[in-house]
């Protein structure tokens, strides 16, 4: 589904503090599976995730998504692909304060121009699935950590993407909530979605819900 070949990524190019986060990554991600990237912080796993998720472009190397080369695409088109095909769950949840849970969830669909009524109905369904129905009108800052994460998950799903990308999803959760998250994850696989996540939480990488673990260190792949 996603093929990476010789991906390199530099920050602050041509400046004294130039820094290469990735040094040539070759990787193929299978559709319908859960792949976890494991490695210490600074190993480049988040950078790799941003490239896979069309959030940024590699400095060199090729990214193929469903057979199409997307590595040289301008931001405008990457955004289109990202909006249609990828859903994101961030470590800090990154919900917009002051808006209700419902408003946060339907935000990614605004640029698509889908009618509001349709969006609200879709969000309602997701809330029911995630057992959040009663909290949809609440401002996000009033929600508990677990609830916030479920709002973030609902937001990731609103455009019905094929791939879910989660960056350290359990970093801010206790054991019970982390287990709950893993259960939701299994639901994704059952629905045929591809999941990519980064984590160094053993609860996640050793879970049976994860099909493949890819190890990373210093911007290179190492054996999981």
């Amino acid at each position, binding site marked *: 589904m996603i093929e990476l070949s010789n991906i390199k990524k530099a920050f602050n190019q041509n400046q004294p503090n130039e820094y290469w986060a990735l040094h040539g990554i070759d990787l193929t991600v299978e559709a319908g599976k859960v792949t976890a990237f494991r490695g210490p912080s600074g190993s480049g796993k988040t950078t790799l995730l941003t490239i896979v998720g069309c*959030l940024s472009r590699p400095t060199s190397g090729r990214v193929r998504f469903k057979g199409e080369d997307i590595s040289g695409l301008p931001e*405008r088109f990457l*955004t289109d692909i990202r909006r249609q095909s990828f859903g*994101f769950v*961030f470590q800090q949840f990154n919900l917009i*304060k002051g808006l209700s849970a419902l408003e946060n969830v339907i935000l*990614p669909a605004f640029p*698509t121009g889908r009618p509001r009524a349709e969006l609200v109905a879709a969000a309602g369904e997701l809330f029911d699935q995630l057992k959040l129905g009663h909290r949809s009108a609440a401002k996000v800052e009033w929600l508990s950590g677990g609830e916030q994460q479920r709002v973030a998950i609902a937001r990731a799903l609103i455009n019905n993407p094929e791939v879910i990308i989660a960056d350290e999803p359990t970093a801010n959760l206790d054991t019970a909530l982390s287990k709950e998250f893993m259960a939701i994850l299994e639901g994704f696989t059952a629905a045929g979605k591809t999941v990519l996540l980064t984590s160094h939480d053993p609860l996640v990488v050793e879970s049976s819900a994860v099909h493949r673990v890819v190890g990373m260190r210093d911007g290179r792949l190492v054996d999981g």
Partner: protein
Amino acid sequence: MRIWLEKQRHLIDFTLASLARRKTKNIGLLLAYTLLVFVLASLTLFTHALRTEATFVLAGSPEVILQRMVAGRHDLIPPGYLDKIGRIRGVQKKEGRLWGYYYDPVLNANYTFMARPADEVADGHIMVGNALARERGLDKHNTISFRSYSGKLFTFEVSAVLSPDSELLSADLVLLSENDFRSFFEYPAGHYTDIALSVANPQEVRTVAAKLSSALPDSRPILREEVLRTYQSVFDWREGIILTVLAGAILAFAILAWEKASGLSAEEKREIGILKAIGWETGDVIRMKTWEGLLISLTAFLLGFIAAYVHVFHFGAAVFEPVLKGWSVLYPKFTLVPAVDGLQIATLFFFTVFPYTAAVLVPIWRAAITDPDAVMR
């Protein structure tokens, strides 16, 4: 098209919510913006109202006024002058006018005395302007005495107070009969102050004037259209000068807008980063921010303009009166006839919304190009 509309609706929804969340920051800008619109709108509404008033007043005055010149100074029209003009094609009516100024030590003000035909004002009676009547506490059937320049005391009965509709020009006016006028000022018999001619066809006015100056080389014809033009030009010029003086304020406002737009709080930056990460395109963010600017502009414009309207037409433009009016001690106190026109609103729009938009354009773009992966770093 439908999708596009729906999308704009979403963007406006989001913008409104986001403005509401940052009330304090936006209220400061909105206030400054509204104040600017208020000041500029008051200024233009006021000058426009004065222009309208002047046009209105002049509409009733004769098309051509003929003055006699002696040594480059305005002099009396000698007897027989009227007949010398003879018949000129296009002139409907010609009449000698009598008017002059009278200094009233009671009010330290100059009045304009003007003679009217006997069928309008009877001997021993006067009609007075509204401001004068107010200041001297006059009403119909009251009597008032003026000491003439020769020292004689004349007493008149007020037969009417002039309608306040055109107070700008009639404020200090005193109308009296021709006989009274001549005896009050000891005006030589047969002489007139000037000659008024009415010309029906506006296209003939200039021909008539040319004939007059060739028939009477020692005279100067003054055309109504020229007086009107001069008034307009003077008002425009004053307005323009004040606007130029206010350019500093506009610039300061533009800088404020620039600063507000570029000084995004960490919270706002994060929000834009989130929006971009979850699938908003740079163009979407620019559009959202444009809506924000538009909403702020329209609100400020509406508020400022309404406030200015109330200020000018209900409170008589208290702030600008001394600058733009004032050629006489007797201030005409008049409620201006509300007059608003498209050109003014368009000009005002250019003076306020245009600088604002130009100032926030680059900051908006800067905010919109936030890296979409910033939130994951």
